[in-house]
């Protein structure tokens, strides 16, 4: 299925055949298309890594900046023009490693953006080292004896920091992934979608089958507005829950709290500078 987000000429991707990123790209474009989003109103803010290259393959606005810094860029974009739909996207190393501090504070701010993290538990572009989400004992060319650090738990961290939408998807199930992504885009406030996906080149342990065997979908009776229940789910590791694990739309967004938009809803680029007022300000000194 082609969408408005496809290029006329399909660009050559730098992903390996069989990579989970293909499914994420396809589904994200479809989800955005089905939500009738105008590509002119969409910005993808991406970092660096195999996952972050996704911004190259979507026909819309993009800011493909530094490794780890997609969230500050996205924050600047959204705060300057709240009319834009902003997606901050990258891999587990990009968002949780290099950008870890920004991940914490973007959540606290509750900026109305969608934060999509391709989580394959390994570094791809640098050829196979451990990522913050690598499981213990995972052996790599750098962690020769296996990973000894605790894996980073983005779901638990996000919920405890007050994230207003926290979800996990699996790239092997495009139908569910699309629904989750659509929910995330529609959500007002910060939305995290951590997507499990296999790395066919560097992670032979957490492969397609492993993700399939080690995940399950939350059932219909699960109340995803109960924060404590959500935290319990976040700590389940024998089988990882998939779906919208926590949601809460009560908090004001970062942009709504900015005094700049209190009496004037126009984005910053539409505003004029009142030099007379500045002259008066100086004269009042």
């Amino acid at each position, binding site marked *: 299925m082609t969408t408005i987000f496809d290029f006329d000429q399909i*660009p050559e991707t730098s992903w390996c055949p069989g990579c989970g990123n293909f499914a994420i790209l396809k589904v994200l474009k479809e989800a955005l298309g089905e939500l009738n989003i105008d*590509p*002119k*109103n969409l*910005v993808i*803010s991406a970092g*660096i890594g195999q996952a972050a*290259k996704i911004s*190259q393959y979507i*026909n*819309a*606005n*993009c*800011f*493909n*900046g*530094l490794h780890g*810094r997609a*969230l*500050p*860029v*996205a*924050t*600047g*974009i*959204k*705060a*300057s*023009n709240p*009319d*834009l739909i902003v997606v901050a996207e990258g891999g587990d190393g990009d968002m949780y490693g290099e950008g870890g*501090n*920004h991940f*914490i*504070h973007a959540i606290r701010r509750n900026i109305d953006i969608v934060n999509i993290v391709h989580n394959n538990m390994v570094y791809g572009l640098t050829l196979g080292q451990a990522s913050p989400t690598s499981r213990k004992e995972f052996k790599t060319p750098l962690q020769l004896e296996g990973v000894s650090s605790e894996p980073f738990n983005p779901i638990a961290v996000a919920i405890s920091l007050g994230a207003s939408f926290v979800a996990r998807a699996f790239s092997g199930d495009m139908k569910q992934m699309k629904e989750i992504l659509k929910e995330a885009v529609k959500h007002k406030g910060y939305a995290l979608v951590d997507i499990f996906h296999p790395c066919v080149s560097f992670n032979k342990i957490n492969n397609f089958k492993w993700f399939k065997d080690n995940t399950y979908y939350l059932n219909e009776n699960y109340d995803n507005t109960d924060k404590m229940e959500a935290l319990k789910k976040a700590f389940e590791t024998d089988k990882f829950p998939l779906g919208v694990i926590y949601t809460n739309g009560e908090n004001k967004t970062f942009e709504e709290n*900015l*005094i*700049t938009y*209190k009496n*004037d809803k126009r*984005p*910053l*680029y539409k*505003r004029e*500078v*009142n*030099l*007379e*007022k*500045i*002259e008066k*300000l*100086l*004269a009042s*000194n």
Partner: protein
Amino acid sequence: MKNDISIVLSGEAGQGIRTVELLMIKALKNSGYNVFSTAELMSRVRGGNNTTEIRVSNERIEAYVDKIDILIVLSKNAIFRIENRLTRDTIIIGQNNFIEEKYINGHYKIKDVAISSLAKEVGGLIYSNVITYGLLSGIFDINLNLIKESITRHFSTKGKEITDNNINAVIKGFKKGKELKLGIQVEKDEIIKNQVLLSGTESIGIGALAGGCNFITAYPMSPSTGVIQFLARHSEEFGVVIEQAEDEISAINMIQGAWYAGARAMTTTSGGGFALMEEGISNAAITEVPIVIHLAQRPGPSTGLPTRTEQGDLNLALYAGHGEFPRIIFAPGNFTDGIYLTQKAFNLADKFQVPVIILTDQFYIDSFQSIKSIDFTDFKVENFVTRTDKDYKRYKNTDDGISPRGIPMQGDGFVRFDSHEHDEDGFITEDPDIRTKMVDKRLKKLESYSKESIDAEIIGSKNYKTLIVGWGSTYGVIKEAIEKLNDNDLAFAYFKQVYPLPNNTKEILSKAKELIIIENNATSQFGQLIKRYTGMEFTNRILKYNGMPFSLEEIIEKLKGMQ
């Protein structure tokens, strides 16, 4: 008494010395006095010893002096650190138990004023700083109504009782001050009443507003934080987005997102924070997103002297960021230039899509002076954003290297920025020819800027034989020194644009037989830069790097020694 007076207030952190300074310089300026003040503070919240110097003079003054004519002692142990600045003529005012025996028995003129007792009479020690304000106002015989009004304004939110007590306190101090009969003879000038009094911090803040700044984010770091706090105070009125970033890395990236979406954004930081921003500066260079950074220097390396001053980060600003790319660096030396250059920084960043850095330092930022009011009709907020068409190419190759910059939702095209080397459309490429073209395109912007480059200013004799070179905050002290020396062979070249070197650099330096450079650092970073680009060397260097600004006396003495 003389017509150029230096008052020093010395006490502990937390005593409110800065409040006295602010109230007093305002009262002096509003009475028509030339005034300049500067503070030196310890990196602590309570205790220790902090001093503030207020100069009042017949002439325009913009420099720190060593000499102390009137010393106000506000705590114990407030004299020993500045002992070598006292002379036989210094009048020491304070209560006897704060002034150590050796000074009482020394050659100084001691005036015993029991500030604490007066404060207690009003209601407690908390009134000591307002008593001090009254005392100084009495010494300068400032109109009492003006003083009372300033108190009412200052305490307007604190309720009637507190205001009344403070008025009571200021009157008590005022009477004491008059009784001292110090015979001040500084002349007043009506023109000064119409001038505006501001701090270095405010000059950057006002300049930013005038440049159309509507977004600022920063991580707090002395001495740079005042700029974002100033803008925060005026954010509602001027529609400025204010955000305290989680770190400087976030700040430098956030302003790029802001410019990308059509804002005019800046960040403010000091050396350590700027070092963290380096990768972000490099990112701005390749994505060609405009950025404005205020870098308020303090002595390093690392934590160094957090509350002191130095011009040690010119090289940091010059070479920050990996890769080769253009940038523009300004270093205002007075507050009029601070406003003009900061204003201009936003227009230039927008036009040339390069990082523009404003270099100040603690001395500049924390000083106060009055300037002639500014005609804001001179300013223009120049907006270079273009409407995109369907085939918009973000990195279009042009003769001047400047590719028209679009923003999302303004036009029919997509705005695609990329930090990888990219083609004209913003797509990643490793094509060697495109790479070469893109590097050339970016570097060309510096050549294009050279047409708008700001010349160095010559102050003093036009037929100079000896030329003193200075940049940034040493402007005031060098200017005053050469005025005092009044030597027909001497001039001062004031560089307010330090990179690229102004177009007139070689010409003005070649005219001199002897070159002297004055810098508030240890390695003469600007001298080295000039040598690199012009091949010209400085025969004499006056360098200082103990954390303090140059004093007028030491510059005069060193220059005399060189002639």
